């Protein structure tokens, strides 16, 4: 049994010092602009944080920092590892194996993405605490009469938070690695097989190492999502760093101190990402084979098929079906809400904001990724990553970083208009829908950038070289080579941002115009009164609206003809 060390298949990229054309210069300029656009709120936060002494940091350092840091690291490690295992494992089973129910599960596995984390957190408390169905059944079965008679795991705990977040967030890893597995060179896999690699070795020694950029991108998103979460950790009483940020700001009136903490946290995330990149080194991971040839899948039968089915079904049940069932139960007692004007207009607002944000985020991420590819400069790809750190900043803190520059521009324009024409324009940007889109872009650019960057890395440089040799300028090469090849990834990126924006809450709440509700803010208003039940209908609508594009995307990109065959997609 000989297995191929992955390094053999990775081609090491040494072709540096290529001529930089005009097209790529322009692309770099646009990339710089985008970075500036995204960096403005971060700079505003840095400015805020400079406006205070280090007293807040000292208090936090002396009291909660140690424990909060440990809790945060444990949470990140727990969620990171379990989402990687679930996401990569299910993606591999779905792409490489055939078993009953696979076609359905391949779609169903992304469903948890449509459910906001704080809603799932809430439903699990309902399901698993003393009065929930699980414990009620236990008591009935064994004749217990109070919680003192038996032990039951406490969901409102760190392990509970890890469980809930993993169940909801694994689709990030599933989606990014599934696309990568599908794009993976059949040749590499087949050569490995010919050389005697069994399915297991193929997975651990060839496919996973090759998919590493995608797995890292997916897990990176999961971790940042974890870090900026406040809803679920607050509800579970899990004291993370984000908690300390909010306490510093809200209870001690020290926004500067909170901004300092938030920036430190962001720096930490950035270092994590940089460390992963450094570990990956300068290997490139693109495929060299004829990619429209898919390796023959493994036909599973008997207990193997059953086990694979269960392994893919379980995450769907935990992250989607159980919470959705509870929501449906509540909503069934409030059917009139589905047609209420409030829910309808909130739904329209949500879809508008999410569509707009998703389009812009994909466009911007694509420009960043393409500029990095054309210029082949490490600085430009670093810029791209820099543009995506907004994700880790707690939403409300980020919102303030956005308000300050927007309101400053508004007030400046107002001043000029008053001076010149005697007309007051008031606040045009701050407090309009634009501020929300801006915030969502800063937050979710990381999502589209991560998935596009990973997919772009899969496209061999040789294609670029061939295209350029055949006389294609970067602009035409973009439309004739890269865009067709990236269709699947573009769709996935769009969808991820769309769904994330649908769920976005903390920044939207603070930035919205008067009387402006999205579905998420509507749910939040109910939940903050302590009557979550009343929010079940709009929460289900969030889920439903997220599910529709998920279905469309997966149908379009279904396995064997996933747009990899670029010659045919050109003629379409």
């Amino acid at each position: 049994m000989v297995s191929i060390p992955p390094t053999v298949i990775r081609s090491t990229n040494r072709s540096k010092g290529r001529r930089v054309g005009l097209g790529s210069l322009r692309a770099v300029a646009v990339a710089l602009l985008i970075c500036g656009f995204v960096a403005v709120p971060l700079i505003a936060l840095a400015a805020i944080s400079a406006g205070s002494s280090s007293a807040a940091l000292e208090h936090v350092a002396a009291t909660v920092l140690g424990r909060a840091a440990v809790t945060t690291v444990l949470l990140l490690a727990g969620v990171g590892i379990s989402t990687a295992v679930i996401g990569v494992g299910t993606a591999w089973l779905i792409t490489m194996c055939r078993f009953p129910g696979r076609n359905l599960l391949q779609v169903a596995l992304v469903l948890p993405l449509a459910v906001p984390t704080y809603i799932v957190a809430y439903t699990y408390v309902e399901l698993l605490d003393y009065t929930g169905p699980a414990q009620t059944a236990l008591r009935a079965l064994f004749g217990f009469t109070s919680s003192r008679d038996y032990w039951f795991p406490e969901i409102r705990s760190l392990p509970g938070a890890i469980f809930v977040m993993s169940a909801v967030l694994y689709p990030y890893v599933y989606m990014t690695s599934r696309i990568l597995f599908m794009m993976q060179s059949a040749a590499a896999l087949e050569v490995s097989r010919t050389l005697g690699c069994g399915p297991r070795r193929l997975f651990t020694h060839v496919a996973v190492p090759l998919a590493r950029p995608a797995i890292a991108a997916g897990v990176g998103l999961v971790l940042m999502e974890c870090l900026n979460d406040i809803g679920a950790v607050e509800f579970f009483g899990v004291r993370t760093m984000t908690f300390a940020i909010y306490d510093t700001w809200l209870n001690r009136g020290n926004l500067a101190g909170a901004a300092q903490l938030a920036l430190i946290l962001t720096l930490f995330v950035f270092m994590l990402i940089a460390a992963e990149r450094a570990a990956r080194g300068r290997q490139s991971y693109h495929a060299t084979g004829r990619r429209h040839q898919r390796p023959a899948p493994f036909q599973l039968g008997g207990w193997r098929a059953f086990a694979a089915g269960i392994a893919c079904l379980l995450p769907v049940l935990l992250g989607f079906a159980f919470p959705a069932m509870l929501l449906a139960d509540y909503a069934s007692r409030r059917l009139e809400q589905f047609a209420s004007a409030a829910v309808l207009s909130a739904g329209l607002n949500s879809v508008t904001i999410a569509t707009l944000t998703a389009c812009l985020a994909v466009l911007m991420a694509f420009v960043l990724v393409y500029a990095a590819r054309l210029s082949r400069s490490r600085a430009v790809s670093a810029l791209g990553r820099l543009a995506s750190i907004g994700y880790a900043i707690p939403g409300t803190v980020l919102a303030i970083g956005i308000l300050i520059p927007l309101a400053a521009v508004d007030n400046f324009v107002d001043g000029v208009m008053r001076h010149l024409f005697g007309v007051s324009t008031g606040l045009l940007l701050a407090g309009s829908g634009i501020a929300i889109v801006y915030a969502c872009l800063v937050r979710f650019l990381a999502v589209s950038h991560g998935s596009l960057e990973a997919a772009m890395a899969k496209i061999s440089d040789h294609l670029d070289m061939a295209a350029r040799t055949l006389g294609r300028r970067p602009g035409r090469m973009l439309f004739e080579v890269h865009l067709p090849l990236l269709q699947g990834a573009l769709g996935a990126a769009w969808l991820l941002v769309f769904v994330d924006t649908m769920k976005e809450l903390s920044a939207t709440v603070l930035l919205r115009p008067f009387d402006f509700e999205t579905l998420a803010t509507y749910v939040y208003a109910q939940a903050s009164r302590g009557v979550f039940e009343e929010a079940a209908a709009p929460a289900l609508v969030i889920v439903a609206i997220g599910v529709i594009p998920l279905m469309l995307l997966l149908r379009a990109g279904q396995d064997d003809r996933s747009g990899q065959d670029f010659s045919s997609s050109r003629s379409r």
Partner: protein
Amino acid sequence: MLKRLGGLTGCVLLPVTLSAMMSPALAEEVVNIYSYRQPELIKPLTDAFTEKTGIKTRVIFAEKGLEERIRAEGANSPADVIMTVDISRLSAAKDAGVTQPLTNEVINSRIPAQYRDPEGNWFGLTARSRVIYASKGRVSEKALTYEDLADPKWKGRVCTRSGQHVYSIGLISSMIAHHGLKDAEKWLEGVKNNLARKPAGNDRAQVKSIYAGECDVALGNTYYMALMLTNEKEPEQKEWANSVNVIFPNSDDRGSHVNISGMAQAVNAPNRDNAVKLMEFMTSDDAQEFYAETNHEYPVVDGVAISDIVRSFGELKADTLPLSDIADHRKEASELVDRVGFDDGPSS
């Protein structure tokens, strides 16, 4: 693909931009409310106000950061009034410089001085007491004090929400105001040692925990009990609430800690006259009765009746210490919670 994206972007951008640009242009009679209080709880009142005066109301609701928003918006901020659900936020707004003092005969005559800022920056609209929920079956005491909760005899029997929640901060601030920082710290440590579990969940969750037998006593606001007892859509909440008695702490000495929901005028209020009209309206008997009946809070205006359910809890003897004194200790209270490690839960 790119063209398609671009076209789609344009289609969507246009209406959003337009609607955003249009809204400030509708310059009829309005009053703009920045609210920490849930819109559902104000809407019937603002509707009544609009009907009476013809002045439209517009609301932004958030739970965090409205002071910062007003500050960032600066001189052009549309905010006319700020509404909050606790004293800390009112004080924070005043400290952030986003309120302005108001001398108004109507408000000053109707709202007791204890529930007003001495400098006129804010006033209370409703009061709620932070009481002890006690298990009917397992707690025989009919009277308790906040200080009792630190007594080792309650070890493993106390539940509460996070110590950093504004309602907890209010109570801890009042303990600092009454006993000084040192004794308050000892007290909080004592309560921490008596906790049955880590502080988590909202006030309703504490009632549920007692029902489940996880703990015997818990801290919570009065109106949550009333809302649970009248919850027709989720009737099991009635059952939880029925397993619990309400005890007004310290009824035999200084009285129970009371927090307020309140209102302040924003510093650059563009519709100042309308804002004053709204504030006067909120102190009217009609508005006060509405709060009492639908949300089961205590009206702050004398002579307005409390709801039947709230009356059934017993007599509230409110701590008379001015709320502004309590609010002064909110930062210390928050730091104390960290220092004691209250939210880490019972040490054992």
